[in-house]
Every structure is written in C-alpha cells, then in structure tokens.
C-alpha cells in the first residue's frame, strides 16, 4: 500500500461505526462482508457488529471454511463467493417491458436504470482491478451498458488492503494486488487496534476530513505497509506465468490437456458465476399469466452452460472440453485482444468454488507452460505415488535381441497405463525376487516391458507362457521431464537396451511433434544384433526424428555407421538453439555421452540421465538403491546432471 503518513488517519476499532455513519449519510446503504450460511457474503452493514469480526477463512481448490475465534479483526476473511458484480452487474435485472394491446398492437419500453446509492465496504485490490476490467468491458467500448454505468457512478468504494491471504490468492501474478493503488475512494488497512485510513479521491478526502480519529503515526503507517508487504510475500508471484501467456495459450488450442481437464470439469459454471469479471448474460422473458405484459431480463449466463453456443440445428461447443477451452482462452488470452487486459485478477474464487477443485493455475501451467529460463532448475519433487499393486495378464511376447524380449501385459488396473515416460514398475512373481523394469511403452490397453534375461527372476519372466498372471506395482519414480523439452531441440542418446525406457518419451514427443524443435535420436549398440525396436527406428525417421545409428562392431550384413555413440554427437553444435538431452544406457556410455553433450553446449540442467540400481521396494524405504543423497527409485531414476553433480559416475557409491 502506498500511503504518505501526512495523509493517513487512524480510526480505533471501537470507533468504526463513525465511518459507517459517515458513509450512510444522505440515505446511502453500506454493503460489505457479513457471515451467512457458513460463508462470508455481501450484505447490508449497519454497525461493525454486522462485519465478520473474529472470523478467518481457509480456502483451497474446492474448499472453503470459516474458522471462528481469531481476535477482534473485522476484515480477516479474504474473498467470499460473491464479488461486487453482485451490485454493479446484478445476476438478474429487468431491462425492458413489452405489452400487448387489446387490438393487436404492442408497445415496447426500456426500463430506465434506477441505481441504488451504495457504499462498497471491504473491496480488495483484486476486486478493484475487477471493477476496472468490467468498466472497460461494459463502458469502455462502442456501446455502454447504462445500468452498469449508473450503478458504478452511484457507488463509493471503500477498499481494504489485504493483511491476510489464502492459498487460492494469486493477485501478485496478475499484477492486481495486494496493494491498493487506485480506483478507490478510501482505503483501510487493519491493525490490531484499528484502521489506518487514506483517501484516494475527492469524495474520500471529504470523508477523511470528517473522521473522528487522529492523524496516523508514522509507526502505524509503517505497520500497515509492512502487513501488506507480508501478504505479498506470503502469496509469492509464480502461480501464473502471465508474461507471454496469451500467445502460449493460443498456440495450445489442440492440447490434449483440454480433454483431460474436461473429464474432471462438471460444466457447472460455478467458476464463471463467482468470477468478478465474467460478464456473459442471456435475455430471458417473464410473462404475466395472460401473456399481456412481458418483462425482458438480463441474466448472468455462462459459457459453460450447454445452451450457450447452441444454434438451431447444432451447438458450436458441444463438448465440455470446448467450453472449458473457451473460458480459459477467453479469460487469459483473447480478453487481451478485445479489452487490452487479462480477464483475470487472481482473486482465486474459481479455484475455491470449483466443486471438483480444478485449479486454473495448474491448468495454465500444464497447457501453456512458460519457457524455462536457462540456469534455473526448478525443484523436482520426489515421486508422488507409491504406485498400485496390480495383477496383469501376459498377452504377447516379441523377440528383440538374442536375450531380450518385449512383453505386452494387460493390467487389471488401467492406472498402470497412465505412467510417465521413464517411470518403472516392480515386477513380482511368486517365489522370485521383485525387480524393476521401465515401461517401454504405454499402450491403450497394454503395458510394454522390454526385459533382458539378466538373472533368475527376469529369465523366469521371459519364460512365462502367454496368459500368465504377473504382479506389477507402479508406476514408480520420476520420469523424463518432457515439459522441459517444449519449444527446444531434443537430443535422445540411447545405448543398447537403454532405448527401452526412452521409447515412451519418443512416443510422447511424436504425439505432440510440433511442440518441439528438431529431434535427434543417437542410438549406439555393441553390434547390429543388439539394437532394440529395429523396425520402428525407420518409422520414427519418417515422422520428423533424425535417427542416427552406430554400432561398435559391425558384422558382414551391416552397412551403417561403425564407431562409438559419441561420434554421432561430438561434431555437433548444440549451443545454436536451446536443446535438451535425454540419455539412457550403461553408465559408462552415459558418462562418455553426457561429456560430449556438455561440451557441445547443452547445460547440465538440461541433460537428463536414467540411472539403474538394485531396487526392491521402489519407494525409497528399503535402502538398496541409495546413491549419495538420493534414493534412485524415489528421487529418480531420471535426474539432470546438475542434480547429480559429482555423484554421477563416481565409482563405488
């Protein structure tokens, strides 16, 4: 908050009614937050007793709770479900009447606005920004909504600077708060014993001049500023990467995420009802019983309602995914084209009041993630799931090399097919030790595991007859961070059987090919016969991946490259464009390869390797796979070189 000490007044809390009296002068009604039905809603405030004194709110995705007993503060509840558009742009207003005359004639008459004289008490910074956005939408264009304009002009805005935030707040990301900077007549900042009050307009100046309190001390003004600054710090500013969001979002109209979020979305329209800027309406008609007098009403509508884009004979947005995309892209992208601003103020209501807890911040990050600045490594949390235990049925086995086969298993639990490329499952067979295998493909109904006969358990697995039931637990661990490759060139370096954990990554890249730059697959193997997925390699080359293969030892039938896998990479310059590398193979191969990639200009933060260790539990409890500070199963198996540091390639750890 920006207050000069000389301008501010201090109003002790016990004198708060004096402010209400001033606001009510001349018959004005004060509207402010009040507790009703377990929520803070907007209602008439006649005394300070009507305000939610002593209450606080807890908010999260799909969650809202009031908790009592937090001392005397009047404005510790942040935003309730209702925004001020309840009063500037009411849910339903009559706009015109139509009357049939007895002789077949008809008269039509608009209903002139008759705005109540209101004082809005407790308007937050994000709410003031929302009023500003609705001003642009409803009064800033070619045509003006007269009812809205008259209501806005008739209202006094008494803001409250936020000294508390809830988890759904993200005004800082949208640049709207928590400091109150403009658009208010008065602004209050609540301290333990009263309010620091400053004016923001001529109306505010006159009110302040008549307030009974003394001039605020420098200490009081300082405490007020510090409280708001603490709120800003508590919210943080990285919830929504707003810069460039419009273009990123409009590039993602075909993102598969729309369908995914639509699976959760109920299309209930809550988000649009609670949004302080959503302005879509429909006209409804109300008739008297004999049909003589009709009143046309303007009613809030929502782009989520099924009829919103319906025309005779069809619907332009028949699917929920269409409607969700419409809402999100309008709010965060095309709003700029129409009104020169984002449609979002970061109040967080759509997050709180979504009955299934869809978090717009999360969806934006998933659909239109920001390019990661070089040198900034986001913390990658450890695996979030312990996986599920499931019994899968062996449906098919296909040979790959002399000792390696690909098994296709039908899991009973489809969750096993929803893993991330690079994640693994623990394979369990009666009487044999469990062992980890990375998924080599997530099919529609089948999980692909490419297994080399390396010990009794894997040999037994490969010898299992079709129809056998195999225990699986997963998906486990952290996979390849494919999002880090968005918009960048991609180098995939595989050695021998190391191509298996990389194949779902290739599948993922191909599924969204245009979101990535050039893709190079450098595949090295000991001999031509040690290569996996041979028939697919050519197909990938035909789908926009440069596939370069090399073998250490040629055989008479081999007409391709001979040499080590590093020679596919060591004369390339990866520094021309931002590149990301994913490397998997024997550890000696990964060390040699990552050295070449680093020398070629890919920063360590963007070189990822998948480590192999003895694993038994798969969730970081048994201790087998520990390496330095890591449990490979839980913290990996995929790591960036920067994360591993000196631990990578150190003998005997």
């Amino acid at each position, binding site marked *: 908050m920006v207050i000069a000490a000389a301008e501010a007044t201090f109003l002790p809390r016990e004198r708060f009614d004096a402010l209400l009296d001033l606001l009510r002068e001349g018959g004005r009604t004060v509207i402010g937050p009040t507790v009703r039905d377990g929520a803070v809603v907007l209602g008439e405030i006649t005394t300070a007793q009507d305000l939610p004194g002593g209450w606080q709110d807890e908010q999260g995705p799909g969650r809202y709770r009031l908790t009592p007993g937090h001392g005397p503060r009047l404005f510790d509840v942040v935003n309730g479900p209702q925004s001020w558009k309840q009063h500037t742009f009411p849910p339903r207003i009559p706009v015109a009447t139509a009357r049939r005359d007895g002789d077949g004639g008809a008269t039509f008459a608009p209903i002139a606005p008759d705005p109540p004289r209101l004082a809005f008490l407790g308007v937050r910074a994000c709410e003031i920004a929302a009023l500003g956005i609705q001003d642009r939408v409803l009064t800033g264009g070619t045509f003006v909504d007269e009812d809205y304009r008259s209501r806005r002009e008739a209202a006094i805005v008494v803001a409250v600077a936020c000294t508390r935030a809830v988890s759904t707040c993200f005004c800082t990301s949208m640049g709207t708060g928590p400091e109150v900077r403009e658009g208010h007549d008065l602004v209050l900042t609540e301290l333990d014993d009263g309010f620091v009050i400053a004016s923001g307009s001529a109306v505010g100046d006159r009110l302040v001049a008549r307030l009974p309190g003394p001039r605020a001390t420098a200490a009081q003004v300082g405490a007020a500023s510090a409280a708001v600054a603490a709120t800003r710090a508590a919210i943080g500013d990285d919830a929504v990467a707003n810069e460039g969001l419009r273009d990123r979002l409009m590039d993602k109209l075909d993102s598969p995420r729309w369908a995914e979020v639509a699976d959760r979305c109920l299309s209930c329209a809550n988000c649009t009802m609670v949004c302080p800027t959503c302005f879509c309406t429909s006209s409804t008609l109300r008739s008297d019983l004999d049909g003589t007098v009709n009143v046309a009403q303007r009613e809030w509508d929502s782009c989520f309602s099924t009829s919103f884009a319906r025309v005779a004979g069809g619907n332009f947005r028949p699917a929920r995914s269409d409607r969700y995309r419409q809402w999100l892209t309008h709010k965060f992208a095309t709003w700029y084209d129409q009104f020169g601003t984002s449609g979002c103020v970061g109040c967080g209501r759509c997050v709180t009041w979504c009955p299934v807890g869809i978090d717009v911040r999360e969806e934006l990050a998933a659909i239109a993630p920001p390019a990661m600045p070089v040198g900034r490594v986001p913390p990658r949390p450890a695996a979030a799931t312990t996986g599920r235990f499931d019994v899968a049925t062996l449906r098919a086995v296909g040979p790959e090399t002399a000792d390696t086969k690909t098994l296709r298993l039908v899991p009973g639990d489809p969750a096993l097919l929803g893993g991330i490329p690079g994640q693994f499952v623990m394979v369990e067979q009666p009487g044999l030790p469990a062992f980890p295998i990375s998924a080599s493909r997530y099919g529609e109904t089948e999980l692909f595991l490419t297994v080399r006969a390396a010990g009794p358990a894997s040999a037994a697995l490969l010898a299992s007859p079709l129809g056998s039931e195999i225990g699986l637990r997963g998906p486990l661990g952290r996979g390849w961070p494919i999002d880090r490759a968005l918009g960048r060139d991609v180098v995939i370096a595989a050695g021998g059987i190391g191509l298996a954990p990389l194949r779902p990554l290739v599948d993922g890249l191909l599924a969204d090919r245009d979101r990535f730059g050039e893709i190079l697959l450098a595949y090295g193997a000991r001999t031509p016969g040690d290569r996996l997925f041979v028939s697919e390699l050519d197909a990938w080359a035909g789908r926009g991946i440069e596939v370069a293969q090399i073998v250490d030892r040629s055989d008479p039938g*081999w007409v391709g490259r001979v*040499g080590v896998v590093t020679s596919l990479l060591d004369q390339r310059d990866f520094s021309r464009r931002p590149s990301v590398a994913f490397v998997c193979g024997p550890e000696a191969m990964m060390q040699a390869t990552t050295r070449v990639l680093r020398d070629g200009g890919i920063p360590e933060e963007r070189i990822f390797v998948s480590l192999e260790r003895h694993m038994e539990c798969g969730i970081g409890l048994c201790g087998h796979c520990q390496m330095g500070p890591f449990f490979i199963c839980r913290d990996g198996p995929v790591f960036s070189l920067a994360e591993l540091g000196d631990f990578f390639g150190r003998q005997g750890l």
Partner: protein
Amino acid sequence: MTDTTSLAGRLAGTWFGSGLAAQDRQRLAAGASLRPFVIGEELLREGAACDTLGVVFTGLLGVQVQVPGRGPTTLLTIEPGDVYGWSALVPPYRSTSTVLGVAPGEVITFAADELRALLREDDPLAATLYPRLLQSMGRRLTATRLQLLDLYAREREVVPW
C-alpha cells in the same frame, strides 16, 4: 572440372575445412579435385601407397582392415566433414586401412606429393593444417579407446573376496 573457388567454399562448410583460414583453403583447393564415389568403391587400400588426403563432403566412408580368419572388418565409418588418408602426410606414406564407400557421396582429394611439397614451402599453411589433422586423429584415438572400453559390456560379477 570444379573451379577452385567453389571447392574452397565447400571445404569451408566442413568440420575439417572450417578450422582453416580462407586463404589456406583457397591454396589447398587450387590443387584439389572433387571425386564422387559409390558404395563399395575403394578410395585407399590397406598397405598401398597413400596417394591422397581427402575430406568427405557427402556420403559415408568405411575404414576396413583385413583380419586373418575374419576377412575384412569395418572398424569405423567417416562422416561428412571429417578427413581420411592422413597417412599421405605421415611417413612411410602407406595406408593403414582400406577406405571404401559405405553410402555414395563425394570427397575432395588432395594429391599427396603436391600437398607435401606445398606444406614444406608454406609454413603458415602447415601451421594451420597440422593441428586440425591432429585434432581429427585425436578424436579417432579417443573413440577407439571408448570402443576398447566396450561401453555396452555387461558388468562382470566381481567376487569381493
């Protein structure tokens, strides 16, 4: 016949040639010629006099040696941009391996006698060419060591006692 300037230009676009100064490329190209090759075509023969040094423009060359009892074995392949026939500059000027086409393409070749004479009389040219040649040979040495390490070999079970 390709003119010297366009050969020098193509040389500049290769890894080997990009490390040389423009006037050096021009001097080298003056005595060079462009040679297309097909699959299986022999450019150098193991044990024979190495009469050319070449840089691969396009295609792929294989470096082969005769192994008694195993026949010809390809040890490595040479990519566009890299050099072959370094024996043309190193006594006794005999090829250590057979070089033949694996995928059809073109090379620029420098006649060994003329190149050696040129390098003897032009110290600055020699001073830029030899380090580049050493860099290429060093890279091959490193690759060979990695091949010896057998990167894909299974870990042998080590008995700890």
